[in-house]
């Protein structure tokens, strides 16, 4: 009990002194004294109650009241105590481990809270998780339709993780074995502690501007507090806003964080994330072999098409010529008919005759036919011989 008091007054109330203005206590003296009494009489203790009037200050300190049906009291929880905790909300039933004291400037009885536990199902973590998840769902960030396909042959793979954790070593080993064609861009971040949230967000922000095909966010296993940065709504929104597909591998297989939920793919371990991000070089080489065969087959097909086209062209040529020949035949018949019409045999048919001498010379004039001349007479159905008389 080291609180200073006015001279002449011992511990306990001096009713006579209080009765006169002479030697009255100052406000500061009373509050200091009250604080000393409270701190001596009430050691740190567990208190149960309901949170009311919760307010988080920019400094990170939390101010709220704890109440039950009959009473309430002011509480403060400083940033260095609360930084690992999700933010509670009004109406929540909690246990606090606190030091009772007096906030002298306001003359208020106050609990300085050192630990805060929720009595609700799953505790404060679970509640905060569900609250953030509900906000992300409302904004459509957990919609399965948002999930993007991973690139088949990534050229640049970015990794956000602790620079000296096992996660990075595992990822490097897997990518080196399966797909060394890629370039691995490591963006170190603090993955636990008070600065983890800001550190992960700033790492994501830097990757935004890099030409990266796929991003892996990884962290090995840990307690729920250790993984908390990956349950922060801020980190989840930053992951959802990345321009490239994101694979998330946080904690062990049983831990599902908000980061896992908003990512395009959730992998159970960092190694599995690296496997999902890469094709296998051996398999791709085998595919190249198949492609080579297909290429040769395609060339054969192409040349067969050329030959077929030539054949078709040849057929058309032959058909064209045949057509010409047919037409020529018809023409010939027509000419024949016309020729026939002009034939001298037709004239003979009408009753005329042609006289020729023994040499075949046509005899047209009287002078050519002296008496006794032998001639041949061609009529329509044959020839007869005669002599002029």
């Amino acid at each position, binding site marked *: 009990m080291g609180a200073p008091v006015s001279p002449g007054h011992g511990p306990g109330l001096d009713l006579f002194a209080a009765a006169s203005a002479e030697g009255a206590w100052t406000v500061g003296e009373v509050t200091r004294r009250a604080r000393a009494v409270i701190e001596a009489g009430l050691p740190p203790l567990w208190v149960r109650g309901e949170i009311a009037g919760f307010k988080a200050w920019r400094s990170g300190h939390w101010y709220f009241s704890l109440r039950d049906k009959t009473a309430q009291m002011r509480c403060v929880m400083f940033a260095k105590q609360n930084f690992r905790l999700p933010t509670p909300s009004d109406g929540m039933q909690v246990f606090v481990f606190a030091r009772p004291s007096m906030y002298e400037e306001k003359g208020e009885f106050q609990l300085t809270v050192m630990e805060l536990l929720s009595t609700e199902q799953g505790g404060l973590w679970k509640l905060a998780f569900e609250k953030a998840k509900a906000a992300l769902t409302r904004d459509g960030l957990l919609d399965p339709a948002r999930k993007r396909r991973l*690139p*088949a*042959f990534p*050229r640049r793979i970015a990794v956000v993780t602790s*620079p000296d954790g096992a996660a990075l070593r595992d990822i*490097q080993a897997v*990518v*080196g074995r399966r797909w*060394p*064609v*890629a*370039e*691995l*861009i*490591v*963006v*170190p971040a603090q993955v636990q502690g008070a600065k983890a949230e800001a550190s992960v967000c700033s*790492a994501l922000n*830097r*990757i935004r501007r*890099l030409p990266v095909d796929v991003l892996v966010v990884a962290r090995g296993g840990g307690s729920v507090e250790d993984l908390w940065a990956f349950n922060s709504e801020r980190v989840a929104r930053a992951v959802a806003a990345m321009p490239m597909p994101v694979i998330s591998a946080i904690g062990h297989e049983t831990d599902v964080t908000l980061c896992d939920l908003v990512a395009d793919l959730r992998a159970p371990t960092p190694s599995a994330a690296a496997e999902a991000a890469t094709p296998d*070089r051996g398999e*791709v*080489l085998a595919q*190249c072999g198949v*492609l*080579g065969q*297909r*290429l040769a087959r*395609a*060339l054969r*097909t*192409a*040349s067969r*098409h*050329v030959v077929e086209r030539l054949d078709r062209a040849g057929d058309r040529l032959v058909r064209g010529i045949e057509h010409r020949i047919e037409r020529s035949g018809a023409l010939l018949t027509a000419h024949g008919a016309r020729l026939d019409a002009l034939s001298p045999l037709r004239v003979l048919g009408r009753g005329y005759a042609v006289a020729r001498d023994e040499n075949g010379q046509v005899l047209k004039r009287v002078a050519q036919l002296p008496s006794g001349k032998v001639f041949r007479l061609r009529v329509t159905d044959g020839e007869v011989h005669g002599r002029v008389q």
Partner: protein
Amino acid sequence: MAEFSKQLERLEAIMRRLESEDLDLDEALKLFEEGVERLRAAREQLQQAELKVKKVLEIESPS
């Protein structure tokens, strides 16, 4: 060297062109040669690769 996935995309396009019916033999041969060359380049890219790891701190310009 062209990006691996670009190589494969071009190969796909070559195949489709070769498998279509309106090619000169001359054009088909040219495409085939290009296909073979790209396939060879892709294979080489796969076989010679060695993983490069960069820390962003190293490649970032001071700003």
